[in-house]
């Protein structure tokens, strides 16, 4: 039930809470979403939507940094494994 789906803000419809709303696109499907909880969201931002309500604005820099950390793991992984391969070979 705590499922929330990321969607891209296409345009604001209404700014005043509790009726604040925007058109949000999810993989090509557009839906009206309540935006009362994310007044800072701008057109082009991604929001996480739960039960018709946007609950957060996705932080693009943080999203990227996780994936970069994974690349570091890949580098750390290659070193010992490379050593083992050459020893075995």
């Amino acid at each position, binding site marked *: 039930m705590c499922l929330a789906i990321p969607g891209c803000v296409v345009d604001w419809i209404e700014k005043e*809470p509790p009726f604040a709303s925007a058109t949000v696109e999810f993989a090509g499907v557009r839906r009206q979403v309540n935006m009362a909880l994310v007044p800072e969201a701008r057109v082009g931002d991604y929001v996480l939507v739960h039960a018709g309500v946007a609950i957060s604005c996705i932080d693009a820099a943080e999203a990227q940094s996780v994936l970069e950390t994974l690349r570091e793991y890949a580098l750390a992984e290659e070193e010992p494994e490379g050593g083992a391969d050459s020893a075995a070979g």
Partner: protein
Amino acid sequence: MKYLDEYRDPECCRRLLAQIRRTVSRPWTVMEVCGGQTHGFLRYGLDQELAGCVELIHGPGCPVCVTPLESIDFAVELARRGDALVTSFGDMLRVPGSRESLMQVRASTGNVQVVYSPLDAVDLARRTPERQVVFFAVGFETTTPATALAVHQAHDLGLTNFSLLVSHVRVLPAMELLAADPQAGIHGFLAAGHVCTVAGFDSYVDFSRRHRMPVVVTGFEPVDLLSGVLECVEQLERGEARVANRYARSARAAGNQPALGLVADVYEPCDRPWRGLGVVPAGGLRLRAEWATWDAETRFPRQSQAVSEPPECRSGEVLTGRIKPPQCECFGVRCTPESPLGAPMVSAEGACSAYYRYAVARRETGSDSTRS
């Protein structure tokens, strides 16, 4: 889809699994709090990949599963009597009450309707002023802002035919019970990413310190889940216990301030019975007195009595992590998604349903869909 596909990348998962295996020196027991996380682990076969390193204990984070029988019976009663059109999320309809489910009442009376959002229920009430509309408000911190918004909208629209049957629950008080239970044997928690998106995770700092357990705010996609597990076992191996955030693209320490302000305006904490756990102190929310006009429990009379759970359903032990669903004698035999004995077999977040959908299918086909 952006922000989903990259977190489902098999290569990233493989690297994280390798890193987890390099890190652990002994098996650790970790509870993922949210049922959405349970489904993620089983759907992608990550529980099998982690075997020997991390045992996952599935938490009670399935709102439909913990909604008490008497709340379901009251919703059934409202629809059965024709007092109101009862609306709720789809999962809630199939949960068995003591005599019948909302789905069964819908079939015979038409007084039940599925909505995607509580705000759709407000709109329904606006369009049908001659009819009372009740929204059966279940859910954790993730969902409470949406139902609080519904109350504000109903107020601003001057609607006298809309009300909430509130059965909201709060995660942290239930985590307190589980952390203090020596039988559970939990070493660390993966906290629910969307609950923390709304409520923040400042409140976990004291919890983590007192129980000397890592609490890792974790998302729902495979990369998120494994990243949360890795952070948790790294802390455990180092003998640390602190709050870490592995869902930083959405969750922030202080939470969503407009959401928290709204929820505090509309609701106040209360003791609430959870199916399987009993009464959890401060484990629920109720409407504040100034919003009582929108409370279905004050608007409509209640005739149904408190009832006990069906004795053969062991959902209480499943929800507290004491048994895994296949250890229940009824699992897959007398209890299936088509004919459930208890809520965890119904809900899209229930642990029994996750095992039935993914683990049973895996055994029958002899395949593992995650390794493709």
